[in-house]
């Protein structure tokens, strides 16, 4: 018997050891890679916030034979020769496409702050406010509209900053330290991209500035990330301090232009008080004979950002141009058909429908659907070996289109103020959380369709796949029990439509 016991113990120990070693990725796994293109003329691309890359002034750098430069070079050489293992890991981890890394930082902060404020002990709710970020509740609540805006400003600023950097890189053509001195170890793949001004420093500064404004409680963390990143740039062999300084100046200037726009885009008025919220609901009731109400306990007095539909769009002149038609009247045949479909899904949660509902849920505490589409974009950006400029371009158009999609969707949500299934179907239960805003149209559907269209534009060989995903994301909300089928199908059309405005702009931006 003892022998058997031993065998079991050995088996148990081996199970333990085998399952213990799972490596759970905390970021996209990739290393420095050779870019598919260098884009010497990338500086002539049409930026979003400024008129052209040369609009920002970057002064001429010291010549590489100057005493000042040689001193910088020897300082960098010395630091690289003496870098620690930790510094090596840090340098490798930032890679030669740090746009992806800063995007991941944004996704992480979105997930960290995507927590809906709970009720106070007396049953009231307190809204997060930037004037008291500590709260409670802490600011921000990084819900999907908020996330769409974070990512849009982040990506657009990175893009504009990199256009400026690219313009001056190929204007001044200062070689990188590793090219000047072959004794300087280069941490990344060698490619003919001039070092002044540092594109990495542009990305670091612009990202830190935007994210610090969007997540004020993370100022220290973001400053540390910037510092680590700048350190990696010096230790990579690609930059000297004056490259970084020039990059930081560009980043700072672009960020302040972006944040100026952000301060005036209407977001600060998007979350309204109860009186305004009620008047919006009543206006819909007068118009259509229905209105959405929050069924949480205690009931939330106001829906999420009722005036997000009035926020300034990136590429659509008037949100009303993208407003979908009136949804089916409750009680109509079309509506009753939908009720039957929803009841059927609720009664038959198949493994496949459950998987789809969960895969696309991207709910509270996660990086939201916006994060999911950025996550996809990052994977293909690396797979297609895009350089940082092209990376920022994809992400800028993706996130502009998705923010515009969100604005259009929110316009529809609060214009039509259509009830959720749990409000209209007696005793209805869901497997996904019902959000605090009206149903029509589905945010996931509009965001995802817009995201898919932009990715299909930039990665045409994968267009079918992206569009299939967007349709799955849309129907996932119906499987989850929180949306009508017309929320999803009309939302998908709406997202495709809104994205076209950004894609039309991308087509004329001066590359491809």
């Amino acid at each position, binding site marked *: 018997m003892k022998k058997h016991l031993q065998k079991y113990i050995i088996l148990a120990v081996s199970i333990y050891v085998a399952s213990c070693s799972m490596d759970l990725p905390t970021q996209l796994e990739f290393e420095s890679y050779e870019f598919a293109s260098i884009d010497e003329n990338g500086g002539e691309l049409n930026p979003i916030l400024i008129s052209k890359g040369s609009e920002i002034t970057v002064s001429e750098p010291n010549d590489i034979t100057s005493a000042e430069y040689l001193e910088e070079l020897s300082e960098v050489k010395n630091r690289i020769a003496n870098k620690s293992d930790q510094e090596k890991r840090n340098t490798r981890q930032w890679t030669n496409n740090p746009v992806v890394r800063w995007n991941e930082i944004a996704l992480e902060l979105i997930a960290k702050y995507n927590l809906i404020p709970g009720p106070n002990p007396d049953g009231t709710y307190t809204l997060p406010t930037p004037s008291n970020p500590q709260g409670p*509740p802490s600011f921000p609540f990084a819900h999907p509209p908020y996330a769409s805006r974070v990512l849009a400003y982040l990506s657009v600023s990175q893009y504009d900053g990199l256009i400026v950097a690219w313009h001056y890189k190929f204007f001044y053509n200062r070689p990188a330290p590793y090219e000047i001195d072959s004794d300087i170890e280069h941490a990344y793949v060698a490619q003919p991209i001039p070092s002044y001004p540092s594109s990495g420093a542009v990305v670091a500064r612009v990202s830190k500035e935007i994210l610090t404004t969007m997540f004020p409680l993370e100022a220290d963390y973001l400053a540390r990330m910037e510092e680590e990143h700048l350190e990696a740039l010096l230790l990579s062999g690609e930059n000297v301090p004056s490259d970084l300084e020039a990059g930081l100046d560009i980043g700072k200037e672009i960020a302040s232009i972006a944040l100026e726009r952000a301060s005036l885009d209407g977001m600060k008025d998007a979350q309204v008080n109860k009186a305004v919220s009620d008047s919006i609901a009543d206006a819909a009731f007068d118009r259509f004979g229905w209105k959405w109400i929050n069924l949480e306990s205690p009931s939330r007095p106001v829906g999420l950002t009722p005036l997000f539909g009035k926020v300034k769009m990136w590429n659509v002149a008037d949100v009303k141009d993208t407003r979908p038609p009136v949804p089916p009247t409750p009680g109509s045949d079309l509506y009753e058909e939908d009720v039957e479909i929803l009841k059927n899904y609720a009664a038959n*949660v198949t493994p496949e429908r459950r998987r789809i509902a969960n895969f696309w849920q991207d709910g509270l505490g996660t*990086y939201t659907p916006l994060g999911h589409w950025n996550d996809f974009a990052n994977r293909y950006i690396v797979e297609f070996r895009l350089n940082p400029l092209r990376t920022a371009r994809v992400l800028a158009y993706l996130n502009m289109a998705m923010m515009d999609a969100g604005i259009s969707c929110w316009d529809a949500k609060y214009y039509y103020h259509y009830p959720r299934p*749990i409000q209209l179907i007696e005793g*209805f239960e869901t497997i996904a959380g019902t959000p605090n805003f009206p149903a029509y149209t589905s945010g996931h559907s509009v965001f995802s369709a817009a995201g898919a269209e932009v990715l299909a534009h930039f990665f045409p060989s994968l267009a079918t796949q992206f569009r299939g995903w967007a349709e799955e994301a849309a129907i996932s909300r119906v499987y989850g029990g929180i949306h009508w089928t017309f929320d999803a199908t009309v939302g998908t059309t709406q997202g495709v439509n809104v994205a076209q405005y950004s894609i039309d702009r991308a087509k004329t931006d001066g590359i491809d």
Partner: protein
Amino acid sequence: MACTLGLCVPFIYSQAQSPIDELLMPKNEICFLLNYEYGQFDQYWEGDFLRENQTIATVQRRTAMVMAAYGISDRLDAYLGLPYVSTNSTIPNGGKFAGASGIQDVSVGLKYKAYESTLGKGRLSLFGSLLFSTPASNYLSDYQPYSLGLGSPQLAWRATGHYEFDQGFYSRLVIGYIWRGYTEAEREYYYNDGSFFTPWMDVPSSWNIDLTVGKWFLERSLRFEISYSNQNATSGDDIRAYNAPQPTNQVDFSRLGAFAQYYFSQVKGLGVLASINQVVSGRNAPKMTSFGVGITYQFSLKAK
């Protein structure tokens, strides 16, 4: 494992011929247990903050369990268990979430009596046990607080010391380490004090202690005992503010319990049992109250 709010309270096995008590089956005898447990909670610890949440109102949890214990030798028992679990919130609630139901984790185990001798005015016995469990259906562990279980393989190593006075009083200490593996969610990103780009979640392992005192009555046909149990997870994150728990949470708790077991003298091999448990403190744990009843039937597989 009985699980709630993500918050998995190790199933007590109603403590009848369980891997954690001091009873052993005679060789070639088998015992079947049918147990039903009802648990509920309307408060839980979010981190160390005890709160209510009208989104989930009162969460109810029912566990029906069938278990078999078999005496391989007079010193070694084997165990096999399979629970069916159903969960839901009471109505009204603010979340309108559907509950869940289905088969949870199949468990297999061994218990070995390593030592027994008289000591002072009683007898001391020492046991080692090993219990492995793994999901027996495709239930979603990432659907808390309604998940049927943690969705991960688990391996519980336990050492039991039992001291029994000649008059029937006894005391028992069980120290266990429960290793838990990974569970697969149906999403490819989650936050656990940082981003994770994977459906796999690391379910924290734990140290578990059970301290029991009890007494036999009626010529050892009835026993009654009270117990204190404690779980300390070795890692994990806190439930975030007003957010759903997830399998990565650090779940700690202390629990008080009472248990009674009666063997009928009229019907050979037949027994009944009843238990009540109350979680009294915790971290990322539900303040669960539970009641259980069960029936056991024991017989020899060897023809007389």
